[in-house]
């Protein structure tokens, strides 16, 4: 074991002395993050929603380029030939190499996560699960890196092979382009790439249900990783003179390839290929959770049961498109329970982050109280104003659901950038003021901000005379979240009007 730890220690020290490796390993992944921040600096949820992809890119770079480049470079120099003269068995060096790379990738991931938190991302939902998922993702890609190092006779070959895997994984493998926006054939192909499972596993732990929701992805990553490491260890090449073409034992590549195929076929068999637009993990809980998560209530309390009332707690977000009847309301109603938002305190409201985009910006715009809509939009605004009081999603059900649905009337036009987007929030806000007491409205809105993932998304408000459907339900949720904060700011006097 002395050899393992000594080799691990020296390899780590040498890594941190290599400026190019540091640049590539730490700065390169941060560039993605910074680009993302520049695009969405006012919104916290999108960054969290993409951490799975960002972390996957960091692992991919470190494992599929960093590892084989170092390994093949040292092999070309004769370093490994010299190691081979020692009595240390191969597995010690392979284990040390894998561990070193894992630690390097982990540190890069932590830097990326730390930077994301620093620029305002909310804390991942399941940190421990995230670490374990990250470990499995690293294992999968390190195995792949070992196989690349085996196949490549020199460093340029590493770059070529790495790109052959990296780019398809980014484009049609579900890493850089969301699966939901890919054609079905690409979704089928992506099932054979570990990148898809990496994103699913990491994202599930960042903003989803943790391990519980990503078991298949974790299994797939483990299988791919073990097979890759096994093939990489069995085909390990000490000497640059051992060309791969002349190498015996090439059959050990079969387990590595078979693992990819098996995972894809298993996904096909279990019907895990097609990705519905609503199947993405929900947005996270907002920061500064002053109230405990709502207890799961099995049934919906009708609105007329208030006060007090309870909110439906749905197992997973779903899109209602076009607007369809809400889930079946149980009858008879349960005994009246205290609504989940009732525990919201003034302190919870005060601790919200009010740093939201300005009213005159592109994201979540809102007209001034006395601002008139332009002529060509006046009919739409008037239509909404006249119908909103009787709009079923805004009237049927408990207060929490109704208020959340009403927020979507402001959020949907904003999500799809309709011309009327800045005027409808004002209509909604006024309607809320007219319908609910200020104190209650503040509490409910605060609860929504703290639990943006709950409830169903309304992405179509054509019943109100505004045609258009928002494609991404998560964007609609984000905008509803932002409008909720803006409304609270007005209700509590933080914004004077």
């Amino acid at each position: 074991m002395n050899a393992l730890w000594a080799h691990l220690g020296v390899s780590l020290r040498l890594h941190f002395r290599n400026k190019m490796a540091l640049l590539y390993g730490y700065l390169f992944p941060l560039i993605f993050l910074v680009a993302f921040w520049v695009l969405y600096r006012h919104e916290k949820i999108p960054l969290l929603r993409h951490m799975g992809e960002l972390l996957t890119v960091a692992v991919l770079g470190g494992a599929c380029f960093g590892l084989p480049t170092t390994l093949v470079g040292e092999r070309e120099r004769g370093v490994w030939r010299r190691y081979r003269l020692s009595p240390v068995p191969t597995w010690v060096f392979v284990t040390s190499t894998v561990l070193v790379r894992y630690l390097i990738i982990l540190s890069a991931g932590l830097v990326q996560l730390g930077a994301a938190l620093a620029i305002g991302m909310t804390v991942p939902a399941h940190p421990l699960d995230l670490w374990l998922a990250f470990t499995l993702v690293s294992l999968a890609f390190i195995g792949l890196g070992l196989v690349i190092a085996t196949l490549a006779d020199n460093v340029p070959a590493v770059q070529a092979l790495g790109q052959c895997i990296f780019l398809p994984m980014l484009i049609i493998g579900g890493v850089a382009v969301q699966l939901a926006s890919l054609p079905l054939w690409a979704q089928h192909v992506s099932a054979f790439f570990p990148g898809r499972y990496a994103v699913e596993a990491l994202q599930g732990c960042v903003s989803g249900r943790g391990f519980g929701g990503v078991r298949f992805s974790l299994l797939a990553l483990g299988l791919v990783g073990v097979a890759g490491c096994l093939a990489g260890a069995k085909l390990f090449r000490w000497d640059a003179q051992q060309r791969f073409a002349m190498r015996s034992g090439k059959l050990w590549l079969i387990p590595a390839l078979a693992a990819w195929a098996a995972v894809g076929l298993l996904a096909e068999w279990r019907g895990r290929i097609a990705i519905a637009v609503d199947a993405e993990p929900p947005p996270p809980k907002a920061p500064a959770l002053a109230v405990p998560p709502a207890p799961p209530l099995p049934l919906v309390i009708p609105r007329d049961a208030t006060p007090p009332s309870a909110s439906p707690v749905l197992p997973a977000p779903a899109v209602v498109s076009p607007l369809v009847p809400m889930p079946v309301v149980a009858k008879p109603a349960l005994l009246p329970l205290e609504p989940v938002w009732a525990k919201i305190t003034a302190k919870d409201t005060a601790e919200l982050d009010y740093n939201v985009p300005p009213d005159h910006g592109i994201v979540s715009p809102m007209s001034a109280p006395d601002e008139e809509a332009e002529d060509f939009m006046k009919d739409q605004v008037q239509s909404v104003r006249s119908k909103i009081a009787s709009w079923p999603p805004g009237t049927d059900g408990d207060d929490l659901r109704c208020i959340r649905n009403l927020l979507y009337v402001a959020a949907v036009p904003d999500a799809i950038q309709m011309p009327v987007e800045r005027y409808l929030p004002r209509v909604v806000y006024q309607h809320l003021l007219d319908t609910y007491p200020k104190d209650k409205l503040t509490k409910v809105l605060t609860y929504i901000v703290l639990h943006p993932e709950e409830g169903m998304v309304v992405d179509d408000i054509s019943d109100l005379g505004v045609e258009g459907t928002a494609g991404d339900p998560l964007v609609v949720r984000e905008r509803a979240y932002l409008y909720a904060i803006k409304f609270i700011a007005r209700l509590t006097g933080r914004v004077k009007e």
Partner: protein
Amino acid sequence: MPAKVIVQNLHKRYDDFEAVRGVSFAIEEGEIFGLLGPNGAGKTTTVECLIGLREPDSGELEVCGLDARRYPRAVKEKIGVALQSTSLQDKITPREALRLFGSFYSRREEPAVLLERFALVEKADAALDTLSGGQRQRLALALAFVNRPELVFLDEPTTGLDPQARRELHGAIAEMKAAGCTVLFTTHYLDEAEALCDRVAIIDQGRMVATGSPRELMARAAVWPTVTLATSRAVARERWASVVGVSDLWMDASGLTVQFRTEQATATLVGVVALLSASGVDLVDLEVKKASLEDVFLNLTRTRATAAKPARVVGEEGHA
């Protein structure tokens, strides 16, 4: 003394090329043994089979009393190796390298001792890419001693070094000899083999062609001394050829420089003086060089070398 290395009927083939064809030799404890041969002769393959870098096709290899084919790991515990080019990572320091390689063995020497012994103390914490060629090669030697080996393999350790660095390494090897180390040493430089080795083996085309001490080989090969002289005016070739004992006569284009071998050096030199006096030609320069290991080597490997390059051997790349 017990043999530290016994090689019997070693064979190794690469596809259609048989690199080693039945090589056999033994190295006694405390001996510095030179393995000589032109490029492609099979000496590196032989060494690589012994140190576990290659699997022989057939033959018996015993190293430090162990069957090297059955117990390669145990053999590696007992031997030290300095390859022709020991490459390490650019940013590793000699101290780190010695500590790292020391961790590979159950028995190890302290890095500080090796740094002192191989004159690397000043560079102990300097990155490898700041070390000179000689310092790197001394580090390679230090790494070979990191496990206090019973037997050291030095594979062309002086190739590519400048004369100063070569001289430093010769000193280090001489110290090993004084300390009673057993060393297997391959080299292109026959002069250093002659100076450093107790015994040598010459391999050509995968076969062992001679074994013995340099002196024994020179005596056995019956290679005669070489006479080289320069005159003030040219003398006809046939007149030189008529001098007693002259053979293998060679003259340069001007006829002013003459070289030949002689079996009877004294009688031949008397004849040369008589010839020059009779011709009225002055002797400008005269050199009588005894037979060297190089002569034996060339004789045995049937490789032609020009007399104008008396210090060169096959495979050398411009080093004096």
